[in-house]
């Protein structure tokens, strides 16, 4: 695990395939986001921070784990900025850095709740494991 691991904005752009400069700061992503209350940096801020190179702060922010990957922001964004893709890219960068898994299959049964949608499990695996 390399401790001096850094990620440049260019890498985030390459991973996500998104151009944050297209954002016109309309706020539709943030208006839509169901995880708004849980987030430290909201989707439109996230985009602006990637644009201005503040990747380190984002990597340490809990926002990247609060995003539900519901894709609502992608659906609404009129400029094809697709904030969730950027969030996913930063999260991936953190995982590459840490190298480890954050969700161990054995722990899953005890965390399950009856009305939990299956899709959540799938997206949790995507999100929290390498």
């Amino acid at each position, binding site marked *: 695990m390399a401790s001096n691991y850094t990620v440049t904005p260019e890498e985030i752009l390459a991973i996500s395939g998104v151009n944050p400069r*297209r954002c*016109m*700061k*309309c*706020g*539709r*992503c*943030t*208006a*839509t*986001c169901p995880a*708004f*209350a849980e987030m430290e940096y*909201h989707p*439109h*801020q996230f985009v602006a921070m990637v644009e201005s190179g503040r990747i380190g702060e984002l990597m340490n922010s809990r926002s990247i784990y609060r995003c539900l990957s519901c894709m*609502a922001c992608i659906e*609404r*964004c*009129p*400029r*094809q900025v697709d904030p969730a893709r950027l969030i996913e890219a930063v999260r991936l960068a953190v995982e590459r850095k840490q190298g480890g898994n954050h969700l161990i299959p054995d722990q899953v049964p005890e965390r399950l709740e009856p009305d939990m949608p299956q899709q959540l499990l799938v997206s949790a695996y995507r999100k929290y494991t390498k």
Partner: protein
Amino acid sequence: MQKIGVFVCHCGTNIAATVDVEAVAEAARHVPGVVYATDYTYMCSQSGQDLIKDAVKKYGLTGVVVCSCSPRMHEKTFRKAVDSVGMNPYLLEIANIREQCSWVHKDKEIGTKKAIALMKAAVAKAELDSPLTAGETPVVKRALVIGGGIAGMQTALDIADAGYDVDIVEKNPTIGGKMAQLDKTFPTLDCSSCIVTPKMVEVGQNEKIHIYSYSEVTNVSGFVGNFKVTIKRKARYVDETKCTGCGLCTEKCPMKKVPNEFNLGLNNRSAVYIPFAQAVPKVATIDPNYCLMLNKGVCGLCSKVCGAGAINYKDTDKEIEVEYGAIVAATGYEIMDVSKYDEYAYSQSPDVVTSLEYERLMNAAGPTGGELLRPSDHKRPKTIVFVQCVGSRECDSTRGGKPYCSKICCMYTAKHAMLTKDHYPDTDIYVFYIDVRTPGKNFDEFYRRAVEQYGVHYIKGAVGKVTPENGKLIVQASDLLMNEQLTIDADMVVLAAAIEPSHSARHLATMLTASMDTNDWFTEAHPKLRPVESPTAGVFLSGVCQGPKDIPETVAQAGAAASKVIGLLSKDKLAGNPCVAHSDEMMCTGCSQCADVCPYGAITYVDKEFRMRDRTTKVRRVAQVNPAVCQGCGACTVTCPSGAMDLNGFSNSEIMAEVDALCR
């Protein structure tokens, strides 16, 4: 032996910064046939032109090559200059070393090399140039305006005022356009009907103006000064000359469940209808989709009650052909369909409306008699949320989004907010905006008044979701300045839907051979210097069909288009373009391929007698070009398999000489 002069322009630093202009002039001096070459800062200036004229006289030049900007910019200027000293203007060639060279290169060495190559190609062409003389064609002194909105009406009035006949073709049963549907107008808040209906009457009564309402243009042929236009007069089932507009038929018609397009479907009308009380012409129209008589053969009530005997169930579409000297497109705009924007619940709740629908809901002649009542339960809304930029400024077109700003929405939303507050001061109004764009005389002051005087809540942010619930609209939104997510319980949501060109515009542009941009707005000949002319000679643009505009801008542009038309119609004859195609009858095999490709229908075939070597005669079919119709596009010359078609000024041998020079 040709004596050619080469003149290299610096265009300030536009060319000189990337092209070594002196080196180009020096290279020219070594090209065979060139007897004089020089460079100068601004060749298009008076002293630059004098330089060319003096050289023509001093060296007895037989051809001139100017290395400068695009011929679209200054070919005319330089042709005029050489013409003034007795040289045929078609002996002048332009080498475009600006748009096609200095502007696209950064490296001076490469730029210079390319400029020299372009210069040599132009010299090679100039060597083969022959003098051409333009023919003349007469001008038909009548103009056609397509679309009878405020743009078309103003253009027609101005043309008529100068003494020329004008016809308006309007697809709807009445003229007036969108402005007739508006309630009050920004920035002065004067009543729209009060200013537009007198204009409609003026148009209707003007002796020089003829209105073809409920009609469409179905074919256009010909060219500037001499267009031939086919107009389809749709069957109205009411004789325009007999109908007095009394409206008795509309009252008696039993078929009353037809969505009223004038009120955007917010209420119903009868199958026989007059769109609104001030319609011009005030003549009834039977809607063939709903009339019981036309569909089921039973009813005929309107005919029985009509005292003027104007109803004619046997009416059919008719086509007429009219000649015009000039054509003006004034087809305006439509409101984009927002039903794909599910998040705003437009299709789910009748209380989510577009801004134009809101105009009708506020209008005294509208479905609610001017009282603001929401469509679902006819109660007065207490909280209204306005959403800006719905479908505008998007790069994703899957839902019909537009990349452009619709321009008028910021102003009309401020208008709606203030008018609502004027009538019902206790209404809570929220406006969600990305930017408030209000440039224009007294425009920003207007918007600030909404905020400061009327207390309209302007929120920098967006609406993410509208959920209809128990008679309310739950609006989830963002407030970016407060970094908050909000929920508002609203009674109505008003969407500032993007505007888009008339859906018939592209078909019309094809008929007119007028160009359009990727959004289907008509393109102007030059974005700054020729804003009301289309690149097609004799076709002009008026109003929103060229791009989003408010009424003041529309009227200004309408007047400008009229003045261009008047300028054209005031001429008795037009100089034609001598760069037209002609066929070599000895080589033509009459294969028809050129006629198939000619977009202007300029080519016909004649049977001609030819004397053969053995003194017999033979009749052969050969192509002939009508020089008045040919636009010199050159499509036929590249198509002709026998090389019989050639274009004056751009002959096959001239083009090949240019290519040879470039390859050398």
